[in-house]
């Protein structure tokens, strides 16, 4: 059982919402217990009277950082499947400034304003209402400011990649930095904020091995382990579990039927990537709406983020199957292939065959549904003349419609915002 659980299909969309509820309740509970539902407590850090927020947030960051690093080194978490927010340097710096100004004025950050509102504080409710109003306003003007929001793109970068440092060393450095920040915070509280230090403070505890010091020692030693533990990302050297691949291929869990794929596209699902591995000329002649052209040779380990759900299609299915093996051995966990390829797509989605008039009502209803889907994709249902079924599959091989023939407003054709992110 590997993490991230959602990416490994341990549970689906519905249960992930239930998990989100449980995590949200827990997060809110601890924020409230830490006193973060009160604006005064949050604002106190700007006057160096009480730097609890800094301590709590930094502790959370280094705990998660060390934990994630070590768990991924132990092989329990696949870090490459964890979503990273893409960096847009200037817009995010500006956004951070706006958030900071709002924090100073209102006394809350987004999360703590929810906690405050939930505990019945009116200022928190007003803050939350303002935040929702701002979100709605931003969504309304988004098309006009999109180029500003997406300026200076840097892709999904990490500090380690950017500065070419070993990951473990960076983890260790951040742990040390956090400890330094804690010490500086306590010093500032004492000197600037005139706060009497807690008996169990890090700087001057009443007893030599106060719990907070023990915790610091544990974190530093774990950080030290991390510094020498190597790269947490499983690179191209990861071993391919051929047995697992064979099992996955054997039980057909990797198949997506043409009908199923068509339904996904009609429903406007955007949680998968459709990759067409045929050559450029074939792709230009016709492709499934929303498909992306990537020839077999260009399927590298970083051609898309590894946490994507990928459906591969080719003319008949052989190339797609080869691409499936290739991608699986490159470490993409969620790869599916369009069963029967574009041949099957044409036969069952674009030009479905009508059932004989004597067929069960259920089949008739199903065909009506398929006919509507066919029209959606610019195809046409094939009706047999009379009750006698055609002896040979008299399916006329019509010239497949050009991509322009597919409806312009096909939902999957438009790039949509991904569901992921924070």
């Amino acid at each position, binding site marked *: 059982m590997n993490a991230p659980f959602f990416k490994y299909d341990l*549970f*689906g*969309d*519905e*249960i992930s*919402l*239930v998990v989100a*509820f*449980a995590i949200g*309740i827990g997060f809110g509970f601890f924020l409230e217990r830490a006193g973060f539902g009160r604006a005064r407590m949050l604002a106190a850090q700007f006057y160096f009277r009480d730097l609890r927020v800094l301590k709590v947030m930094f502790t959370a960051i280094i705990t998660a950082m060390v934990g994630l690093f070590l768990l991924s080194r132990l092989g329990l978490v696949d870090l490459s499947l964890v979503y990273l927010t893409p960096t847009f340097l200037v817009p995010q710096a500006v956004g951070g400034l706006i958030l900071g100004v709002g924090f100073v004025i209102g006394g809350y950050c987004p999360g703590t304003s929810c906690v405050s509102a939930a505990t*019945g504080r009116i200022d928190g409710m007003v803050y939350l209402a303002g935040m929702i109003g701002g979100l709605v306003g931003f969504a309304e003007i988004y098309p006009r400011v999109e180029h500003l929001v997406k300026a200076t793109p840097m892709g999904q970068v990490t500090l380690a990649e950017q500065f070419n440092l070993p990951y473990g060393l960076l983890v260790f450095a951040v742990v040390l930095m956090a400890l330094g920040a804690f010490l500086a915070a306590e010093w500032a509280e004492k000197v600037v904020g005139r706060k009497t230090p807690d008996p169990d403070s890090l700087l001057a505890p009443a007893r030599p091995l106060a719990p907070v010091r023990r915790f610091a020692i544990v974190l530093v030693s774990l950080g030290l382990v991390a510094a020498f533990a190597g790269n947490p990302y499983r690179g191209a050297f990861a071993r391919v579990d051929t047995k697992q691949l064979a099992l996955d291929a054997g039980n057909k869990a990797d198949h997506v039927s043409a009908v199923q794929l068509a*339904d996904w596209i*009609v*429903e406007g699902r955007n949680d998968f990537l459709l990759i067409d591995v045929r050559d450029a000329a074939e792709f230009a002649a016709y492709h499934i709406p929303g498909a992306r052209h990537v020839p077999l040779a260009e399927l590298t380990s970083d051609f898309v983020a590894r946490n994507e759900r990928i459906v591969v299609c080719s003319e008949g299915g052989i190339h797609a199957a080869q691409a499936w093996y290739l991608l699986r051995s490159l470490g993409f966990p969620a790869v599916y292939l369009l069963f029967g390829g574009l041949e099957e797509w044409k036969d069952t989605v674009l030009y479905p065959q009508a059932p004989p008039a004597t067929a069960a009502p259920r089949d008739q209803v199903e065909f*009506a*549904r398929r006919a*509507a*889907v066919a*029209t*959606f994709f610019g195809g046409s249902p094939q009706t047999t003349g009379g009750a006698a079924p055609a002896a040979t599959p008299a399916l006329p091989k019509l010239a497949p419609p050009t991509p322009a023939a597919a409806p312009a407003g096909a939902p999957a054709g438009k790039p949509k915002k991904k569901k992921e992110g924070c």
Partner: protein
Amino acid sequence: MIEYTSTRHNPGIDPTLHLWGWEIPVYLFLGGLVAGLMMLSGYHLLRSRWDHDRAHGHYVTAPLFSLALLSAGMLTLFLDLEHKVQVWRLYLTFRPASPMSWGSWILLLVYPALAASALLTLPDSLPRLVRRLPVLSRVAATLSGRDGTVHLIGFANLVLGAMLGVYTGVLLSALGARPLWNSALLGPLFLFSGLSTGAATLHLLSHLTPRARGDAPGFSDALASVLVTWLRPPSAPEGSRKLEQADNSFLTIELVLLALFFGGLMTSTLAHQTGARLLLTGPWAAPFWVFVVGSGILLPLLLQFLQAQRRIQSTLVPALLVIGGGLALRFILVAAGQASHWSIALP
């Protein structure tokens, strides 16, 4: 047009999926809530020596609230009727095998029982009206004059409340065509859900009725103070601890009944299992686990437990969560039940 036929979300394509809209769940919720209120105030009437316990603010206004809520519920039921002018025909016959027939007669009996218990407390709940119409105060005095009459009214409320509460569940479970509803546990489940929402409503009323002045809390006063003491009541009124404890018992029983309900379905036929999975892992899993189990039962259980131990401040939040959870249970069960089919079990 294409989307309608292909995704079948349009009521015109699959009308059977959308036979019941918001009216039925709202009626089932209000019916259960009133049943809970009737049982609690009936129990109160039976237990109390009437003269001493008059000042229990929430029990004073509860019958009037129940009458208003039940009438609102009946209105939604009426809105759902296909042949509205034919409704009187239900009262020309009684069919023991039909839950609809039982329901219409139970509702007919519930009104006088509620009206009697409302009359008992009318001098306290609507003092101005009683001053205008002195005959009402004479009726109230006659009714409350003898313990036997008060106990009779209490007993009638208790029994009819239980019947009403069970009937809201039986109404669904009698529809054999929907495997998800096809469980005899739906009656008790709705009864205890109704009791918990009833206790939460009483709790809400007890917070919203002013007690400091010593005189009787009026019905209109209670409505006006809804906005004033919204989330932070000055102090927990007397009796609210008992209500919290009662509510916690009801919620615990409801949780057990839910577990048994799913246990029964999951050990039954494939159609029943598929129906249960609609709620457990299927398209209704998120609202079910979050709004019914999470914030509707577990969270208020925990909050009321902590409040009863006086470890956190007493607020109306648990009561509001319980009421929301009861409403969500009806909506989700009605919607998911209509999506569960026997045809799923066919090859």
